[in-house]
């Protein structure tokens, strides 16, 4: 407890620079998966397997995954576990009441979480990508894990089997704000037990999940941009014609 308090104090002191967030930990840039269908499909699979156990994505219909190149048959056979129908929303089987008891809070709905976590300096994906990769061993937490991005996160490290267990190293350094005072400074992670994935594999998997969550936050985003190109082409032709039409009328105004 004392340790996490110290950690909180430390994190509060980290200057709020460009990539800083509420925890003060600098966010990594999430790789762009928006045009990689295979990665998004993999992300959807991981999301359904790991995230939906506790979280809802209650605005998201399973069969919308057809937009990612999956057939209804594939969705039914690979992504539906508890007898849902393919036209149903992604909801969790876990009752909110139990969640409140088990985790102290109801896990947030993830439908638009990638949009909600954006700030002027980082995308929501950057936040999620860093968050899911910075869980570390902390015996003081009821879940046994703490997080660098969201200190004292209520969420357990659901992906620990994949990532393995890592510990955070802290070193004592001079407090930049108060002379003679020591503070703990994060000095990197240390792998304690191996996971089923290598670090590179794990980062790729998380990037896929986050890519999927970004897609899920606005499934129409790609279509919006594609259509936008045509609209702008049309508008520039229209504007050119309107400009010339205007000029031809005003020529006669003396």
């Amino acid at each position, binding site marked *: 407890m004392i340790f996490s308090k110290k950690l909180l104090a430390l994190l509060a002191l980290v200057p709020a620079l460009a990539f800083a967030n*509420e925890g003060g930990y600098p966010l990594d840039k999430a790789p762009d998966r928006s045009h990689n269908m295979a990665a998004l499909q993999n992300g959807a699979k991981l999301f359904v397997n790991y995230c939906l156990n506790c979280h809802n994505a*209650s*605005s*998201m*219909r399973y069969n*919308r995954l057809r937009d990612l190149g999956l057939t209804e048959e594939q969705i039914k056979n690979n992504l539906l576990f508890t007898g849902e129908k393919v036209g149903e929303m992604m909801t969790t089987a876990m009752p909110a009441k139990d969640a409140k008891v088990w985790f102290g809070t109801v896990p*947030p*709905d993830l*439908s*638009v*979480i990638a*949009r*909600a*976590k*954006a*700030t*002027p300096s980082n995308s*929501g994906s950057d936040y999620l990508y860093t968050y899911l990769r910075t869980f570390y061993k902390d015996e003081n937490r009821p879940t046994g894990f703490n997080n660098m991005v969201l200190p004292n996160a209520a969420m357990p490290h659901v992906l620990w089997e994949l990532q393995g267990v890592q510990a955070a190293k802290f070193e004592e350094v001079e407090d930049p704000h108060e002379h003679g005072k020591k503070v703990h400074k994060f000095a990197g992670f240390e792998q304690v037990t191996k996971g089923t994935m290598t670090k590179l594999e794990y980062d790729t998997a998380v990037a896929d999940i986050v890519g999927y969550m970004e897609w899920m*936050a*606005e*499934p*129409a985003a790609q279509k*919006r*941009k594609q*259509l*936008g190109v045509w*609209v*702008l082409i049309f*508008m*520039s032709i*229209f*504007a050119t014609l*309107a*400009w010339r*039409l*205007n*000029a031809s*009328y*005003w*020529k006669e*105004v*003396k």
Partner: protein
Amino acid sequence: MAAFKETKFPADAPAAQKALGWVDDRFPLTKLWNDQWGKYYAPKNFNFWYIFGSLAMLVLVLQIVTGIFLTMHYKPDAGLAFASVEYIMREVPWGWLVRYMHSTGASAFFIIVYLHMTRGLMYGSYRKPRELIWLFGFAIFLCLMAEAFFGYLLPWGQMSYWGAQVIVNLFGAIPLIGPDLSLWIRGDYVVSDATLNRFFAFHVIAIPLVLLGLVAAHLIALHEVGSSNPDGIEVKENLGADGHPVDSIPSHPYYTVHDLFGVSVFLTIFSAVVFFAPEMGGYFLEYNNFLPGDSMKTPPHIAPTWYFTAFYSVLRATTSDFLWVLMAGIAGYTAFLWLKSKLSGMVKIAVSVIALLMIVGMLPGALDAKFWGVVFFGGSVVILAFLPWLDHSPVKSIRYRPDWHKYVYAGLAIAFVALGYLGTQPPSPVGTIIAQIATLYYFSFFLLMPWWSEMGTFKKVPDRVVFHAH
């Protein structure tokens, strides 16, 4: 009143002409079109700044039409509202486009209206005989603010929820009735389902009705007295042989094609935002608003949407320390009024009484700074209504004012933008001081206008408008 007479057409007249004649005998359709647009003569020297009136009209129509379609799928229910917006974004065919047009349209409306008002300020469009046009316009601006405020609660995100909570709580600062008043507005002790339902009613029907009526009044008044122009010359004082002002041209077709070009440029920019940056970096759609409204979780930083932040900054700038400065300002202004004003003794006494009451109310232990913040917040908006009577300049247009007047106007623009920017940021000591200086400048601009606006050497206003043939 002449007796009814059916217009006779030759048997071989086109059917359309006959039909129009039939209608015109019963309803002044052609007359209305000609009076309001077709044969409405407008000065020919309109520049870039004169496009925003028709653009505001376009955006109004856009908001109403998209709004109607959104209402078909939106659920004004605290438990369903947030999800119903996402339903529109995902499940309703083209719902995302309609929603983005509506959310972008709200911000576009304010950008256009602010530019439209800037035009009025620069060229003295509010001067006699156009005072009522300005007042109708001012009322439209108030309605627009109300419309935006009520509408912003509807998505029921965190910023919607807490923004409404903060603004409704402002009414609580009014002495005696404040707490009950804000309770009455909310219909509950916190912003809740009851609040959402009444805000929905105001947003979709009450305010739009008033807004449409005011827009009609604004246009009728404009077409009655005629448009002003960048030179501030009354074109009707110089009529040609045909009885029309020599410096004017019929709106149709000249301003029809002109506005069409303006519309095409505007829609290009508008589409670029709708299709490529609908969130506009968190200014048009705030990131925090993608979290459902939660009465148990107060966001660390609550700011109103960007179009309110200038006025909101005035509210925040009114700290208890700053009240001393304001007291000195009010006392100084009253003394100045006695020495320099041509107003009647009765008015001076009335102003002095109000000033005295304000100063007493600002003393420590009297009304708190929050109340005065609300007063100045409201005052910063309402003061705009008095412009036609504050401006005593012998010329209308900035073109013929002394050069240093341009710096005074530029100062107002800078102060307004600075206030607007600071209002989006969390409060900071330096920011507060800048906001206080900007607040003083803003009020001084208007309150001292009767004097500074007639000072300096004015340029000669030409007899004819300045127009370079294209």
